[in-house]
């Protein structure tokens, strides 16, 4: 063979211009920016609710029932000074301040969204890795998941509430259970394709133990799609929690949530639409923001699903 083909003794790889990093691409995506900003704003509203309004969201005031937004009352506070309070979003049929209730309600919605997303992804990831990698268990696990998927979330919630009573935890568990199979299916599909990759086979043949193979070579491939899945799960969970509270099978009525504020206002909706409109607006904006964030994340993190420009 000709000497012309002889390679130099050692070669260095070409340094190709690297693409902008994930972080920078995320910051360039308008959906991510707007969705992320709105979620942060609502989270801040929820956290800072005591600073934004001095009114106790649970305080019942029979004299000021069903007042329209902007209604002013003059009360004496604990030290006897006169203070004027404005019910910015009016009051409900028990005279509770809707503005305060909506602000505090943000806490429940975001907690449920975050907890359901995090828990269903964590549990689903574990089950999915096992189902995808250990073929013997796959059939059993997936049939159980199919079964879980067939149960409507609201029925699970009603069953759980009647068994263990209404609480935040019950709602989180109830909303999470039907979401787990979705995560399992996603993870399993990724694992099934990754385990056939030659680099996984190479890892097997250099004696890497199975848990390490899963952790090092398989798991990183699931992260981007899971982040995307988690955001959509969060959006759906917030909506489902509101629906459960609206039906009265969710969070106990003493804790304000957007769902049970709307449930309170349902009967008198035609006379006092503000009882429903304000929490509904917050709910809509929150779910929209979470879904926008999810869309943006999908376009940036998962180029296969991005629409072609």
């Amino acid at each position, binding site marked *: *063979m*000709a000497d*012309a*083909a*002889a*390679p*130099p*003794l*050692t*070669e*260095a*790889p*070409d*340094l*190709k*211009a690297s693409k902008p990093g994930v972080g920078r691409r995320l910051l360039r995506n308008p959906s991510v920016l707007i969705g992320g900003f709105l979620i942060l704003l609502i989270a801040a509203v929820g956290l800072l609710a005591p600073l934004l309004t001095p009114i106790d969201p649970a305080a019942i005031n029979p004299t000021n029932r069903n007042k329209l937004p902007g209604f002013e009352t003059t009360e004496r506070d604990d030290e006897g000074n006169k203070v004027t309070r404005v019910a910015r979003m009016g009051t409900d049929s028990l005279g509770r301040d809707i503005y305060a209730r909506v602000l505090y309600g943000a806490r429940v919605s975001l907690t449920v969204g975050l907890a359901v997303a995090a828990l269903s992804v964590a549990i689903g990831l574990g089950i999915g890795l096992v189902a995808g990698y250990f073929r013997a268990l796959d059939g059993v696990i997936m049939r159980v998941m199919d079964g879980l998927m067939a149960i409507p979330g609201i029925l699970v919630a009603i069953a759980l509430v009647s068994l263990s009573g209404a609480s935040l935890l019950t709602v989180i568990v109830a909303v999470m259970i039907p979401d787990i199979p979705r995560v399992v299916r996603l993870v399993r599909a990724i694992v099934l394709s990754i385990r056939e*990759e*030659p*680099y996984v*086979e*190479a*890892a*097997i*043949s*250099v*004696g*890497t*133990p199975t848990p*390490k193979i899963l952790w*090092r*070579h398989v798991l*990183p491939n699931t992260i981007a799609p899971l982040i995307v899945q988690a955001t959509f799960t969060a959006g759906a969970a917030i909506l489902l929690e509101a629906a459960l509270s609206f039906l009265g099978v969710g969070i106990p009525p003493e804790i304000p949530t957007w769902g049970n504020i709307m449930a309170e206002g349902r009967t008198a909706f035609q006379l006092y639409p503000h009882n429903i409109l304000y929490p509904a607006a917050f709910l809509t904006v929150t779910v929209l923001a979470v879904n926008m964030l999810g869309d943006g994340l999908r376009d940036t993190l998962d180029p296969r699903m991005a629409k072609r420009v």
Partner: protein
Amino acid sequence: MSSAPVLELKNLSIGLPKGSDRADAVREVSLSVAPGEIVCLVGESGSGKSVIAFGTMGLLPKGLPVRAGSRIALQGEDLVHVNEDRLRELRCTRMGMIFQEPMTALNPVMRCGDQIDEVLAEHTRLGPGERRRRILAMIEQVHLPDPQRMYGSYPHQLSGGQRQRIMIAMALVLEPALLIADEPTTALDVTTQAQILRLIKELQAKAGTGVLFITHDFGVVAEIADRVAVLKHGVLVEMGPTEQVLKTPQHEYTRMLIASVPSHDPPERTRPAATGQPVVLHTDKLVKTYGHRGLFGGHKVAAVRDVSFEIRRGETLGIVGESGSGKSTVARCIARLIDPTEGSILLSGTDIASMPNGRLRGLRRKIQIVFQDPYRSLNPRRTVGESIVEGPMNYGATAAEAQARARKLMELVRLDPDALDRYPHQFSGGQRQRICIARALAMEPELLIADEAVSALDVSVQAQVLRLLADIRDQLNLAMLFITHDLRVAAQVCDEVAVMSKGQIVEHGPTRQVFGAPQHAYTRALFEAAPGRHFDFGRAG
């Protein structure tokens, strides 16, 4: 040939998007194809040969603009400035194209006959009866059996070769003046490839079609071309009649390419025979059946049947065969990536065929495997250094020891040791394959399996990797199992070859003996089909 050219390219330049490794995919290429002539466009990957084909068909994506001053003329008609409607009319009627992958080029949910019919219905005013008659005649012309049945078949019901024949029928049904064939036989087995090449030649001679044939394989060039054009990085470096270019290449690059093509004749063995050496691997009646047990009895397919051979230290056994012959299954059974159904695999005397995974772990390091696809063999998220040290650290080496060893191995495979902290995407295909070899060697194996390890590489890179493998085998006195479909490669690196067909070894012997006087009918057919067999490569230059 005196008649006006079918296709004429003059100063054709096609740009690349900003940030690419060069400004133009193709720069000032001029060539012509006369009626009844086959011009081969040869080059390594990234040389721009397919870009020329797509440019001619007017199928370039927006990111690849044809530069001003370029001229593409089909029978004298300018194609650069023509509008989309006219181009659509010209495709099929005056120029046809066949692609590399016949499965993806055909619509899987449409009958083959209907796909050809679409072309006729779009471009002619023939009635349904007349169209059907023409299609059946065309299917017969491409030598497909039972045209009626072929007309009604879906692509998945046909073999790769049959699908490519349908593609050819579709491209030629309107008797275009120009046929562009973009690596039409690369995805096919060697015997099928020979048939398709013969078919293209026959149809082209009959109708006087001009053919622009794109390939990377000099064997195919020797087989089919009247003239050859050699592309390097988008520049035409040499053009001339086939005999002249292959025998007396003028340009240095052409000489290097042709010299890199392995010769079909096995070289005289210069190394001492391995007969006295200990047997590293011995398989006895290895069987692998796939299938499933169903409630009502399953069905079984034997991928490997009764395969027995042995490899001694310092020796290379080649397993050659076409796709589906079971050669890769044998390799994967031996590496215990899959479990053999029956038979034994003796590794230095220990049977590992049915050893449970726990006990197997200690022995895994003795067998290492290098895979075909250099782009998928390395985890893209880990630096090449991390990939190389993974194995030794699994067996208790400290990070420092493993790192030092990785640096030595990088030198052994002729890569810069400082590149260990780079990621796989920063390396070329050949470099990655060398990293995979380094990763395998880090385990200090006794047996190295190369499963089509050079098949995805360009011919010049392939030559380097083959030389490296032979060097390493000799330096480290390894036993090597070399799986390949490429007879030329097998001829060059293997001491012994086993020819597999339908899961069985049909012929096994020293390379020179098998290549010199093949005994089995299948082996003879395989050698007969090898393109450019009569042409003595690897000697020129």
